[in-house]
């Protein structure tokens, strides 16, 4: 976790975090730093803000701050990379739809791994 990561991933599922890290490293050759909660995310501001792409789940568990809070935190701290929402029910949330209109990409779970890789790859290119 000390190495500079090109991608940061926020999701409350441990299995998905581990898989995402393996998938992105094995296919795109990029380092992916994963976080299970907004608190963890905020505790690593340097690593997070230097990343090129942030992939955020929306629902991070009952009564926990969600991916939208992470999104706002990134904007407040001048994150200059590309943000992707990666969630099971994204389009029902008006705030997410507003973010989409402002250029934030929304990926709905479950998405095919090749499509996911393609989205992340495009985002990395755009951010570069």
């Amino acid at each position, binding site marked *: 976790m000390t190495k500079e990561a090109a991608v940061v991933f926020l*999701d409350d*599922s441990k*299995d*998905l975090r*581990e*898989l*995402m890290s*393996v*998938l992105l490293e*094995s*296919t795109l050759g990029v380092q992916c730093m994963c976080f299970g909660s907004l608190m963890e995310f905020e505790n690593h501001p340097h690593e997070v803000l230097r990343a090129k792409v942030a992939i955020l*789940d*929306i*629902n991070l568990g*009952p009564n926990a701050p969600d991916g939208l809070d992470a999104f706002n935190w990134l904007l407040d701290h001048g994150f200059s990379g590309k943000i992707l929402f990666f*969630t*099971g*029910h994204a389009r*029902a949330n008006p705030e997410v739809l507003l973010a989409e209109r402002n250029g934030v990409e929304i990926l*709905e*779970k*479950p*998405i*095919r*791994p*090749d499509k*996911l890789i393609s989205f992340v790859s495009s985002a990395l290119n755009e951010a570069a």
Partner: protein
Amino acid sequence: MCGPVRASRVAHFAQAFNFYKVCLSERDAWFGATLAALFNALGMLLEIAIVRKIPGVSAKPPTVSALVGLMLLLVLFIQRKRPSHKWASLVFSLNTASVVIALLSTNLQFAVWQRNWAPFQAIKLGCLVAAILAPAFWVGLLSILAYCVSALLQFEFFFPPAIKAQVAPDEPWPILAFGLAAILALVYRFRGAQLEQEVARIRAHNFAIRRLANASLNIRDRMNTPLQVIEISTDLLRNSNESPKQILDRIDRSVQSLREINSMLVRQEKANESQTHQYKGSRRVKDAAANSALGADSIVE
């Protein structure tokens, strides 16, 4: 205007006339009956104070009515933990009967002995109080009619013509006007209560639908994460050197998560069925829908 729209408007119009079926909450009905009994007790004490200054008018009827009012207040107080429409209506009706009898017993005496007697003031006040406090529409209507009709009959058949001409030349029209105003006030009150109940019902229904929609979204979210884990895992199994055991373990855990969600949905479905069956045919079907929505919420919390 097309057929269905017209039919809907007719149905809405017809529904507006169902205000007489409106059932106030038991607490409101109880409170109305309590205020009416209190008004009887206090009002009749004032009547006694007036009567004491007028020789020829008996203090007995207002005294008895005040005592009846106090007894009814006591009954309402004792039964306050178990308020019911039936008891509230019964007490309100007894209270009205007590006031009407007391007033009928003293009206003629007042007409004869009180200088400048304003005819049937207490009867007119009773009409308005019944419209404001009646615990049910029919109880209010019957109370208003009891006040008006009793006063009219007394005036027509028991007041000597000389007294009628001397103290109440305009009657019975003012009594009829007050009775009509009281009935209109009663209609207005129960129509308002009907609209309030309709708004509350629609709000509860919308709330239940919103909860169900949120629960459905949360369930989708819970199911989509394990599905995503399975998708990536199978892809990695095919295309990477990652240890198959670790990947298969993740797939197992995801399948287990999906199974758990499925079992919870099955349990909730059974609970919904049993609730729907329980409430079927009753007016609480929407409560069942709201409970189901809450139950669905609990699945994902």
